[in-house]
């Protein structure tokens, strides 16, 4: 178990540091995307909310 924590924690941290350097910061244009809902339907495009409402993005998973 300890080995798993060390292994996965190190891998996750390396991934975060690599991509966080490229991720948008305050003031940057937010990367646009279009994704479907849990049924694979009703595509939502981030940029569709421009000029309408601010958007709170919550990234996560069930685990």
């Amino acid at each position, binding site marked *: 178990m300890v080995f798993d924590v060390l292994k996965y924690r190190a891998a996750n941290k390396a991934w975060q540091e690599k991509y966080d350097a490229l991720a948008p910061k305050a003031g940057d244009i937010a990367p646009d995307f279009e994704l479907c809902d849990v049924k694979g339907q009703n595509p939502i495009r981030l940029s569709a909310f421009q000029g309408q409402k*601010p958007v709170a993005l919550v990234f996560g998973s069930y685990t």
Partner: protein
Amino acid sequence: MSLHDLYHQYRDRVQFLMVYIREAHPVDGWWLGGGITGVVTKAIGFTAATDVYDPKTTEERQAVAGRCQSELKYEIPICVDTIDNVVNTAYAAHPTRLYLIGKDGRVVYAGRLGPFGFKPDELGEAIEKYLAAGQSKE
């Protein structure tokens, strides 16, 4: 303040959107459901699933996201990242992260890296400040 508290407080003025990304702790990865961690996570009422394998297709991920939505009675609208993790990567979001995007399409608040930097209170403060600034211009 929880995310759902924020959602209920601001949903009329802010579009909330969950982006369902790569699993944080799947059975076939960094699993938290076994051994001592399994006992501890149950004891503290951890609501995350401990029986999910890492999806191999976008459709599998959508199915897990649907299960999450129904079992947790998750009210925030969910969209699901594709299996190539393009959106997750663009936002360096794994395992959890919060952002606030302004009406002009620019980032207002970029939350720190999860899980320890996942701070709904900070998002709430950013929303309040953003909305207050908008009102003062009107």
